[in-house]
């Protein structure tokens, strides 16, 4: 009996550290999950670079979609690639200005805008990039991070058929919302959080350079 008591008395020396170790492991596991969500300045810088690539890709896709030099099949492929860059191409909108309209812009969903580009059919399109910048990411009330990428480009195009040709030369500024969205995937019963970078709404400003 005394021996049993002695065991139970001394067993705490083993149990307590074991419990503490378990608790420590649990804490470490929690920290790991939080670590995955915590974004360091270096992480955000990496996302800024990715955003730049996505924006450049989008510009390239627009160029291909609008050009008549490519087959309809290929241009539709570019539409699919461009749509994949956006968080929700049906909800994300683009502000479109028209020649001669300076105050009121119409707003279209990204999907409609890209499909309209397909119908517009420029004979030749030339896009020259002049400048690119992205703002710092700011945390939103929903826990996601938001930034705006601005690109400055010269857009030259020849529209119309071979008989009636019209040339357009515009200075275009695109302001693109960039969203760093917190997503959760389930691996077994535990949620695994991760971040995904997507493009959002776009504002376009155009100034004609045609003489």
């Amino acid at each position, binding site marked *: 009996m005394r021996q049993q008591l002695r065991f139970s008395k001394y067993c705490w020396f083993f149990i307590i550290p074991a419990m503490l170790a378990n608790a420590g492991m649990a804490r470490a596991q929690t920290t790991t999950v939080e670590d995955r969500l915590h974004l360091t300045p270096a992480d955000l810088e990496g996302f800024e670079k990715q955003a730049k690539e996505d924006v450049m890709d989008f510009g390239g896709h627009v160029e291909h979609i609008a050009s008549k030099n490519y087959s309809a099949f290929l241009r539709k492929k570019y539409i699919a690639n461009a749509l994949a860059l956006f968080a929700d191409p049906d909800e994300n909108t683009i502000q479109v200005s028209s020649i001669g309209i300076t105050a009121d812009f119409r707003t279209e969903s990204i999907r409609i805008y890209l499909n309209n580009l397909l119908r517009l059919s420029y004979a030749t399109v030339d896009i020259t990039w002049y400048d690119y910048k992205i703002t710092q990411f700011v945390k*939103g009330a929903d826990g996601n991070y938001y930034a705006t990428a601005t690109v400055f480009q010269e857009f030259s195009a020849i529209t119309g058929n071979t008989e009636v040709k019209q040339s357009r030369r515009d200075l275009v500024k695109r302001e693109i919302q960039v969203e760093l969205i917190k997503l959760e995937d389930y691996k077994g019963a535990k949620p695994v959080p991760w971040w995904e970078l997507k493009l959002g709404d776009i504002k376009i400003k155009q100034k004609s350079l045609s003489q």
Partner: protein
Amino acid sequence: MIMRYCLLFLLLCYTAISDAQNVVITDEQFLRDVAHFQVKDVAQFMDRFNDQEQVVFKNDTAPDRYKNLLGLLNLRDTALRRDTNTIAFINEVFGQKDKKQLTVTDSDLYAAVQCVFVYHGKEKVFTVWLKPEAAENGGHYWGLIGVQSDLFSLPNDPKSARHLINPMNHEVGFSELSKGLTHKKDIYEYMPADYHPEHLSAFLAYVHNGDLQFKNIRSVDFDFLQINGWLFTVKEFFRVDLNSGWLIADIKRMNEEQKKHFLKDHFIE
């Protein structure tokens, strides 16, 4: 000292305007310069105002803080250039020892968004006011805090109303109340003299019920109240000009009391 600044100011105006007038559109380098000098977004406006980003002007070898501040003004606006408040404001910001840093999450930053709605088949412009609000998770969002439109304005002096509920009308079961509620256009005349309609609630109800149908956003301005004694408005001027993009369009000298009145006039009434 003041003369030096005025001279510099005029010189900068001359440079900017002569650049704009001598635009050779085919000159690729000029378009590159426009892209470089243009204040491309509000964040860049703040960076340049805060001296976190500097541009080096032509013929300079190093960035000049004073010129950078002048470059944030809409220099095409002659009235703004000639306004004594303009130079006073720039001098004050330039001379600040503890530089006030503007951020997009400042609680005294206000956005005025001109929205076009369709009301009973006709277009109506509403100014919707927003300001950054802090969330519990440390994030931020733009909160809708006010709206301005003549739709919610009361008829002039409703006290001189031809319609009212007479003081003994309660004896006949408020018969005149039924008339008031039937004659929709005169309904405001039945209100007490100190009645001030709350525009935002009315606006939300109209939008919610579908009486106001949103068409588009016409423009966005930002009012900065962060600098002590001043209010300045930033708008976008998109043009092929070195002095373009998000620039200061208006500067008002405003003490704290006047700022309170400004906010009250815009958001409460």
